[in-house]
């Protein structure tokens, strides 16, 4: 990564029929950097990608390689739209070859298909590929022109874990070779794994930007130590006497802001009080905690076996204007590290 700015937005603004999609977004992405953009559905992620790629108008300054977004050298851009649906009756090889043919120079189609793990299905019609394979074929269309900047709007939606990890490895190697990657995702695991820096978009505003570690320190909240068991309630007072902040839950005690060095003291306090417990869990805050805190979203539902639905606020159906389009909720791949049910956050 170097200091050359590849992607730049200054005070980007966009409204759809009175609904604010971008509200003064400013950011810079440097060459070779992987920038992850997170936020609820309808937060403005796709709108920002469109504005930066010049495929939708927006107010403010939007630049790629120092040129206005719509006037930049298109051969240097690779784009994977969120709900991209290429021609269904082309084989994967034909599809990638088609997009490669739109550029003066392009990579060998078979190499690109190998990169995304589709070499064995190269001669299958796109419409007959599985969901994950389709998405990989779409990613291939964004790679075929060997771009210098890659915009990937939820690239791993529908891809199985092995394929996802393979794609992450590919993106890592692209970034190492100097390709700038601008990535949107609902998977905190993906963003935490890939992104050098993360921006969190909420209601069109970029409310936080930093490395994943910086965001966790700044916005993730304290680490938690959970003591679980049917009789752990008796341990609340001894722990408080030992100086811990304790919340009493159902069959559990939650100790906030506990450092690893203090764990021994907590265990000793429980032992001295004769409290029996079944499990001890120490949890550091994650990017997901940052997301939930900054977006104000919570998962308050409980899952009842046999019930038809999970109750509570669902980020995918938050009712906010959804620029991700119809079906946006449907393509929400969920968060691999979603909070467990029955935990009030």
């Amino acid at each position, binding site marked *: 990564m170097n200091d050359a700015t590849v992607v730049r937005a200054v005070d980007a603004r966009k409204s759809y029929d009175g609904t604010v999609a971008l509200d003064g977004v400013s950011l810079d992405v440097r060459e070779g950097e992987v920038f992850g953009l997170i936020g609820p559905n309808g937060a403005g992620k796709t709108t920002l990608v469109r504005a930066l790629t*010049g495929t939708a108008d927006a107010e403010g300054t939007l630049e790629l390689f120092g040129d206005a977004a719509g006037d930049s050298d298109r051969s240097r851009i690779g784009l994977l739209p969120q709900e991209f649906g290429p021609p269904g009756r082309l084989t994967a090889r034909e599809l990638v070859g088609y997009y490669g043919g739109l550029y003066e120079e392009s990579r060998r189609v078979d190499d690109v298909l190998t990169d995304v793990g589709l070499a064995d299905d190269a001669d299958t019609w796109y419409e007959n590929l599985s969901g994950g394979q389709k998405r990989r074929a779409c990613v291939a269309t964004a790679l075929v022109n060997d771009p210098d900047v890659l915009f990937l709007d939820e690239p791993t939606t529908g891809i199985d874990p092995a394929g996802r990890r393979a794609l992450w490895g590919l993106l890592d190697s692209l970034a190492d070779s100097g390709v700038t990657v601008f990535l949107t995702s609902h998977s905190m695991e993906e963003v935490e794994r890939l992104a050098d820096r993360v921006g969190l978009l909420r209601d069109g505003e970029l409310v936080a930007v930093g490395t994943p570690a910086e965001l966790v320190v700044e916005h993730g909240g304290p680490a938690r130590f959970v003591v679980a068991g049917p009789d752990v309630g008796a341990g609340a007072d001894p722990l408080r006497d030992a100086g811990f902040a304790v919340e009493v839950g159902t069959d559990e005690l939650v100790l906030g802001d506990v450092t690893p060095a203090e764990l021994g003291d907590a265990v000793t306090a429980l032992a001295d009080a004769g409290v029996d417990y079944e499990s001890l869990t120490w949890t550091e805050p994650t990017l997901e905690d940052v997301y939930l805190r900054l977006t104000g979203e919570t998962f308050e539902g409980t899952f009842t076996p046999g019930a038809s639905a999970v109750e509570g606020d669902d980020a995918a159906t938050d009712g906010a204007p959804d620029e991700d389009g119809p079906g946006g909720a449907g393509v929400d791949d969920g968060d691999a590290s979603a909070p467990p049910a029955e935990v009030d956050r």
Partner: protein
Amino acid sequence: MTRTRRIRAETVAATRSFLRRRTAVFFTFFFPLLLVLIFGVLVRTQPGGGGLFARPDAYYLPGYLATVVLFTPLSRIGSEIARHRDGHRFEKLATTPLTRGEWLLAHTLVNVGVIGVASLLVFGLVTLVTGAEIPVSGDLLLLVPFVALAVVLFCGVGAVLGRASDSQDGVIAASNSVALPLLFLSDTFVSPDLLPEWFLPAVNLSPLTYFSRGVRAVTFAAPDGAGLAGVGAVGNLAILAVLSVVCFAVGAAAVPRGE
């Protein structure tokens, strides 16, 4: 060369996509053939009689060809734009060097090929099953540019309809609404003497009229009308060419770019 490469890539992809949709291929060719069979074989012409189909069989060849050059480009280009929009393909294409004009040219080339074959079938069927007597001469080669230019023209119009409609259903409804009046009011199946006097100037407003009159001048008889109605094959071809350029340019500008 780069432009050629782009247009070739788009053309090849569009051709493959079309040819692999079997029902689309079938009905593209079946619809005009059905029309010939219904009107040319079942209804038949009654030369010297009154009303519709009162002229010799060869008089109606431009009408049958007009059906092909009119309906197919309108619905195919319009639907293609709707499909592209549904799949966010224009959003992706906007980040490639392919221009809107190149996109429309590529899809127009596919239509010229498809409709060229369909026109050949219609021509053959009309001469075979209706007994239409077509004078054979080198002038018949003018049918090639007539068909090609008409396809270019209506591909441009189809792009405008595709842009204006917000769904594939909307495109089909819009293209039918445009095509049906044009088909019957462009000196094709309905001869001008069946229309009220005051309406005749409106016939000259339809671009299909110049296709129809020009093809008829080549395949049936020299025009005997006054003013624009009396223009010969080359004159109609020239008018059609100008209108094709204008419609293509407007259509290219109408092709969506991005979202």
